[in-house]
């Protein structure tokens, strides 16, 4: 077992730096974002899961059908969002989306590339909901949920 208290100082520093490095490189927090003028202040995990699976078609506290903005399936925020929050494997997600689309239940998310494009889209639409690396959040968008590392 690792006992940090018993480590020499130099090792402690190296270890902490390593931890920071790990958290920044592979496990950055993800923020779910909406338009800054949206009435939504926060959302529950379940609401987000249902919104991203198209099972809640309107944004809560609004009169608007949700326009869900996805990132590419290879991107880090996408992987974290679907594996840890929605809890669906990439293959199951693809099958689910195909069944959803062709059963007339609704539309699929709009896919854009990278945090900046998600912010551009969300900043331009009161109906939009997307997700980005928490470090990329700025005043053009409002964070309504933070997915943190366990």
């Amino acid at each position, binding site marked *: 077992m690792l006992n940090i208290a018993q480590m020499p100082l130099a090792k402690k520093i190296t270890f902490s730096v390593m931890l920071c490095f790990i958290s920044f490189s592979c496990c950055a927090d993800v923020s779910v974002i909406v338009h800054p003028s949206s009435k939504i202040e926060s959302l529950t995990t*379940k609401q987000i899961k*249902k919104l991203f699976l198209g*099972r*809640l*078609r*309107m*944004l*809560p506290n609004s*009169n*608007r*059908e949700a*326009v869900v903005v996805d990132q590419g*399936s290879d991107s880090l925020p996408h992987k974290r969002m679907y594996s840890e929050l929605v*809890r*669906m*494997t990439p*293959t*199951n997600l*693809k*099958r*689910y989306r*195909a*069944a959803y*689309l*062709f*059963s*007339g*239940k609704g*539309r*699929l998310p709009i896919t854009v590339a990278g945090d900046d494009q998600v912010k551009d889209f969300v900043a331009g639409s009161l*109906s939009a909901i997307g997700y980005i690396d928490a470090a990329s959040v700025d005043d053009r968008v409002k964070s309504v949920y933070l997915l943190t590392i366990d």
Partner: protein
Amino acid sequence: MILFFRYWQGAGLPLRLIVLLAGFCMPGVSVAVNSEEALQLSGFASFGMGKSSRDDMPFLNHTENWSFRSDTIVGGQAQYKFSNRWSSTIQVVARGFTFDENDKFDPVLEWLFTSYQLSAETRIRVGRMRTPLYLFSDSLEVGYAYPWVRPPVDIYSYLRSPLANFDGMDFSTNVDLGEADLDVQVFAGVGGGTYIDFDIELCPAFGVNVVSRWDNLTLRYGYTAADTDAASESLTAFAANYDSLASLYPIFRDIRDSHETKGELFEYHSTGFQWDYESWTVIGEAYLTNGPGKDFSSDSHGGYVSFSKQIQDFAPYIVFGYYKNEFSDEITSLIEASKVLVPVGFNSDLDELREANLVIVDNFNEKGRSYTVGVRYDFHQNMDFKIEVEYLDSNAQLTRTTESNSKEDTVLLSMVIDVVF
């Protein structure tokens, strides 16, 4: 209510066309933000090939020669969003093989409806929709959406293909139950179609479909009831052989009339689950159909269970299926009763007719099993390849379209490439 639907059916095509058109034109209200967002086009296709071990049991038209048509399907869909709450969907599907006159890739309108979102959880749809008979009813043709080459045949019986759609309306809502939630759908409408030479009309059909989701477990129960007319051209012609005796002995009129079903209630219960646990997916479904127990009708039940495991891009699977169809014994009882009135040996033509009739009726008593082993390979972002071997053990003349009622088995090898775009 029933009178209304009877009127609807009586009004025939024009009225149904108007409802369908209404399904597409109703909300001329407001136009969405920009046309690029308003219209969404998409499509799917499956390119299949397969061969069976026997020419004399052409399952789905698969024979000992490779067939490229039986599992080949192409579909296109357009969704148009009129406003935040109004939208319309149209889907057209062309199939290489069907049990009606629409094979040879004739385009068939599968979905055409307009939906109105009443609230975040609730919506109403009007038009042509899929009857929720199964877990995968909504995506029956979309091979990419399920693990197998085709949905398990013991449950997704081709006999029920005329019931696949209805024209009418539905109401669906999502009920929050804390950790779990329920999707509840209630629907009513009219439907029908052709299966080989059976014309089937459902007027009305109505029911409820409840899907519960809790984490990675999905549970479903569906109930559909349908006032049903069913008749087969060849059977009606066969039964007309009793006409000459019908005036002398009314029992022969009863026998003749029992070869059709008119305005009888059929009830369909079905239940299913899907459990995604880590890399495993377990899916099971069961159904029970209750006919009126008389005339030309049957009671049936069946089920399947499927296991698949995702190993990187590969997902091997196995499926076990079973079903049984018990035909109403009314015709048999009437024929036996007629032998008291007109004994065997009195008229050789009648004896032959009665014996042939008993054999025909017995052909509708079927049971079958199926065992399937296959693998799905997701070789591209929106494409998969599947190969499976299915062992069918049955005496099913109708659902398996075998040539005889004796117990037979077949091995079917199928491959398919599914695409969504």
